[in-house]
């Protein structure tokens, strides 16, 4: 066993004693490249989240390569550990890409389900109305004329408490708006979110804006040009009822859709 290895290890021992750096320029370059590559992979947040272990191993291997590079006659080891380091880094990158793809799939599946629901609702609506969509229907049913223009209110029940995502019950209403906008191409809207006075001011502001944004996202999903939709979040401001009672607060938690006139002229935001 000892025979063939005695010689190189004698050399290694000598190098250990000498302790001088003797890396060839090519090997140095390989090491530098490995460092640069690892640095690039490290900056990818998806990699950091999903492949910490491989990243740590990449680092460890590179450290080993660096240590070997200061010993004489260890070129082979340096290149070997640099190779392993690159591989660990590449594996980490793949894991990061997988995580990103998985997140994207989850997000897309949600959108797909929403569209599927919207489609079945739309078919229902179509059957009911035989393709006849009257502006008066929207005006009469759900919207009221105010000094700010035509305003449609989406109530609190269409959102889960504290959440920005629309409940499926909202689909029908939003679908009506989408169809209305499709038939009235010049009209634009501003979607405004409001909350009650409970909870943190800043969070309420974010929540109100997030909810308005959800409605906008859904309209865009349903084919309305995003340029026709403005979004605003007003948080606790502009209550429509007193905040002292449950009922009043429920009325204040709402999303309003403000329609422009037929020429596309929309009143200024609040």
């Amino acid at each position, binding site marked *: *066993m000892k025979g063939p290895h005695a010689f190189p290890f004698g050399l290694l*021992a000598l190098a250990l004693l000498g302790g001088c750096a003797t890396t060839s320029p090519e090997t140095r370059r390989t090491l530098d490249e490995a460092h640069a590559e690892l640095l690039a992979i490290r900056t990818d947040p998806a990699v950091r989240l999903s492949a910490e272990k491989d990243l740590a191993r990449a680092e460890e291997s590179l450290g080993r390569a660096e240590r070997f590079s200061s010993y004489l006659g260890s070129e082979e080891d340096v290149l070997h550990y640099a190779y392993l380091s690159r*591989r660990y880094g*590449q594996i980490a990158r*793949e894991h990061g890409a997988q995580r990103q793809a998985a997140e994207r*799939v989850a997000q*897309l599946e949600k959108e797909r389900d929403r*569209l599927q629901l919207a*489609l079945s609702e739309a078919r229902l609506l179509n059957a009911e109305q035989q393709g006849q969509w009257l502006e008066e229907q929207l005006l009469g049913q759900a919207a009221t004329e105010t000094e700010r223009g035509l305003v449609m209110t989406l109530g609190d029940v269409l959102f889960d408490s504290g959440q920005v995502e629309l409940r499926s019950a909202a689909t029908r209403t939003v679908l009506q708006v989408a169809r209305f906008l499709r038939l009235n191409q010049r009209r634009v809207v501003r979607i405004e979110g409001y909350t009650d006075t409970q909870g943190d001011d800043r969070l309420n502001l974010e929540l109100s804006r997030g909810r308005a944004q959800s409605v906008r996202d859904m309209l865009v999903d349903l084919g309305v040009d995003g340029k026709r939709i403005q979004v605003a979040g007003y948080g606790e401001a502009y209550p429509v009822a007193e905040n002292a009672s449950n009922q009043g607060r429920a009325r204040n938690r709402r999303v309003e859709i403000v329609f422009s006139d037929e020429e596309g002229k929309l009143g200024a935001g609040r």
Partner: protein
Amino acid sequence: MNSARFSVALLFLVVAGCASDPAPHEQLRLSEQALVQARAVGADAEQTELALAQGKFEQVGAALAAGHHKQARMLAEQAELDARLAEAQLLTRKSNKQVSEVEQQIGVLRQQLGEL
């Protein structure tokens, strides 16, 4: 005198111990496992990384037979990571395919909604 002889003997043992790399049986097992797993998710020699892994894994046997244990270990370690990378690349490809499938479904739904 006695202790000096003992030290020399110890030194000899340490040097001898270092000099003889053990045969990398455990590493060989890991490498084989990585290859099996990569093939199980569908990797084949069409993929550069898997071909590399296979090639290196085959060379391990010859290195071992010649008593080059260190070389055998290095080959086996590289083969393991080559195989793991091949597997990871394949899984990424599958995930990306899934993304485009759902995107396609969404496209169809959008079109259907637009036609109503």
